[in-house]
């Protein structure tokens, strides 16, 4: 029988809120987010780091939270899909996904939104090739991706506009900037 791991105390900021928790060292970040914090927008679709349903931002970079231990996030900042909308207003990336019918069942969507945040923070004007590369690790079984390509291209324009105007979305994408 595997050894039970020892408890560890961590402090993580998730969507701007600080959380202090006693966790088992083997706890995955995705389970910490879903089970300890009950933020169930982050999903699990595989067990080999393939599907990207679990993608979140950790210190501004997209990570597959099923492949990161919660202890690795200690002292860091995590953004999940729940942190995108502000005061009920959709983030421009979310709005672009909506307008382009870029989701069907929506199971992959949170991960795709977070990968898009990561992309646009680094590359405000991605080509379709850039977009495809950026979401290569996000599997969607419903949409055939085409509307997602279009949504992300449109999101890029919207985020740039929001950044220029200093409105919602410009800042959230900026928070995904690499540190």
């Amino acid at each position: 029988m595997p050894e039970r791991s020892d408890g560890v105390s961590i402090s993580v900021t998730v969507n701007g809120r600080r959380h202090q928790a006693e966790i088992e060292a083997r706890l995955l970040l995705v389970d910490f987010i879903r089970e300890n914090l009950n933020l169930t927008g982050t999903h699990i679709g595989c067990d080999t780091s393939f599907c990207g349903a679990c993608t979140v931002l950790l210190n501004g970079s997209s990570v597959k939270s099923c492949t990161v231990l919660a202890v690795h996030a200690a002292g860091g900042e995590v953004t999940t899909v729940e942190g995108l909308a502000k005061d009920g207003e959709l983030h421009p990336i979310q709005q672009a996904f909506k307008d382009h019918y870029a989701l069907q069942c929506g199971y992959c969507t949170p991960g795709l939104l977070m990968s898009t945040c990561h992309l646009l923070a680094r590359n405000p004007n991605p080509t379709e090739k850039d977009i495809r590369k950026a979401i290569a690790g996000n599997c969607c079984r419903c949409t055939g991706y085409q509307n997602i390509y279009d949504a992300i291209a449109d999101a890029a324009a919207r985020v740039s506009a929001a950044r220029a105007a200093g409105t919602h979305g410009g800042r959230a994408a900026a928070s995904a900037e690499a540190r």
Partner: protein
Amino acid sequence: MTEEQKTVAKSPGSNRWVGQSVARKEEARLLRGQGKFVDDYRLQGTLHVKFVRSAYAHARIASIDVEQARNAPGVAVVLTGAEVAKLVQPFIEIGPDPGGKILDYPMAVDKVHFQGEPVAAVVAESIEAAEDAAELARVDYESLPAVVDAEEALTDGSVLHPSSGTNLVWQGEFEYGDVDGAFSKAAHVIEIDRLHFHRFSSTPLENNVVIAQWDASDNQIYFWCNNSFPAFAIQFLSPALGVGIDQIHFQSHDIGGSFGIKITNYPYMAVCALASRACGGRPVKWVETRTEHMTASAHGNERTFRDTRVALDGDGVITAIESRHIDDCGAYPRYEPLGCIIWAQVLPGAYRVQNMRIHFSQAVTNKCPVGPNRGYSRMQHLWFLERVIDICGHRLGIPADEMRLRNYIKSSEMPYTTPNGCVYDSGDYAAMQRIAKDLIGWDEWQSKIAEARRQGRLIGIGIGTTLDSGTNNFGQSQIINPRAPYSGQSEGANVKLDIYGEIVVSIGSVPQGQGHETTAAQVVADVLNVHPDMVKVRPGFDTDRNVHTGHSGTYASQFAVTGLSAVHGAAAKLKSELSRLASFALGANEDDLEFGVGTQGPEVKDNKSGKSINYWGLANLVNVNNAGLPPDLDVTLNCRYVYRAPFKVPDIQRKYGNLTLTYAAQLHIAVIEIDRETYIPKILGYVAVDDCGRVVNPAIVRGQVFGATAHGIGAALYEDCRYDEAGNLLASTFSDYIPITALNMPRIRYGHLESPSPFSYNGAKGMGEGGAAPVHTVCAALQDALWSSGVIVKDSHNTADSVFRALSTLGLDRGQGLGARD
């Protein structure tokens, strides 16, 4: 679309919202991470299940020792397959004997029949505790010979289920017209020794999840689960668990895709329910891992086509086809042997061939059981027909487009009765071909391809024409088993005004991303002349809403017909009640009433007096302010309607009758180049033209087409649930299976045609499954690229590896996959 078709279609009335790309209602929660998938439910006191599974494909369970697991920390209960078998009846078998004698229990009892079959369930306080304890279970297996090939299975060298004594599940002869006569008159007879449609799965991104709670106090079982055909699941579970069907409560909310694969997760539902009862009624949750999903949920049907002979006249018109089809259903039939008849919905495909003789059989093998995966049973057959037409065209030197035009059923022949009595409602395949050729630039490609070939490049263009038959007649099950108690097709819906006058819709369907909330709201909005935002459609399915029928679910491309007809009927019923009530309230003549939206929301107005009453007022009158309501004003404002498709039971002896109500069609064209160095096939251009009758929401339909196209391209070029000879699944994780990604999914040019169905109230046809058009199309394009090299495309799955092998072993490897041209 022809003029006749335009007039045949019934007028759908005044459509303001139906036909528009209305934004999806579902997005409000899904985009914010507020979707409610089963794994997101948090129930007090939940226990977690980890299954102990067989590593063997076929073995006797010599002994099983779970004592240590039982005593491990946090473990509540451990159930072995043998223990479970004592608590339940085996699941119903749909088929007759010999397949009907197969004993299917929720877990393996004394033998395992496929890799991954559960042998014990460990239930603990946390999933980690369950996983840790499951490692302590000791199972000794005595391995038995595994049979992974259906044709070999039929020799009964190693029998899976002693209770039936044979691996044959079902067989039957389907003969129509004068096959021998057609062959004797044929100008050409073309033979194809073997074609093979491979095993794959649409692998929804959300795995199976079950939460079950068996409340002993009142003997009620509650399921929160992502099964996509719960009305069917509860009909299996009720006799198996020995409870009345009304004691089973099933609820789903958001589902992360199913594509038919989640229809057969009911064995896991049974185990979770039994575990809950064993634990004093605590909720028991099972969240399948991807590896479990790949190995032990469901795969699509694999099929082998043997000894095909095709008769053609001097013009290349096919006059007869005879063939033997052997279907592989994996270790247990479950939804099978329905697949042994479902293909016959599209017996001649898009073609006029009148004489057909097909011997169909189905075998169990030591592989994961199949489930009705997107394109279920029709796509295998349609692929077969498309290979036939394609190979015949190449053989006779008739260009691909021309070959099909000579054989297509003509739009002027619609509605068209097939040799086995199915009625194709409408369609114009030749027109679809024209649209697709325009979109891809057919003529330009012809010269580009000729030029490329002169440079020694392997490049080809291919057409796939396919049908998506929707709204199936369950009466076809009686062709399989005359005692099967199923026929027809139905769906239920309820439209009501809630106490405060809100319009609330419940449907028996089980959406998994198809946007039912949105399209249902469009329909209701048109009936009541309100905005779709004013219509609340309850997400998901719930037996306790009391709207479902025994056919309720989301499968078989039917929502646009069955679901929306039910919604339309219920909304019309509500409207007539509202009209009577408003006439009383306003003292008006019903003829003078107008439905619409006023300053105080949805209302009914008397055009004579100008007075109006809003929905709050109307609901108030019935629900909470009803003193003085005349006793003969019998309204509830709570209206259920059941849509029943107009079917008869087919003629069982002749295997003849209408098996499906609507026939959507897809016509795809692909251009593919095979890299001369890597042999990797690359799609250079792809067009998908769809005709699903009158379109309810164009953006949703487009999305379904893109999704189905991705599944088909993925299946044709990447995805393969292949087993080795010992019965080990070779792609048991996503990293091995490689579902299609953004790196290899090409852009699709989309086109469409509308041939309204004369058989649905709104002219719509079910769609969504898509007939696996890309599998046919990709194979045809590869065939075109490889024909001159002497290769025949004989397998539905083609990769760089198989192309390389075919080209390098040309003349040696005639049996498998891509074969040499004889």
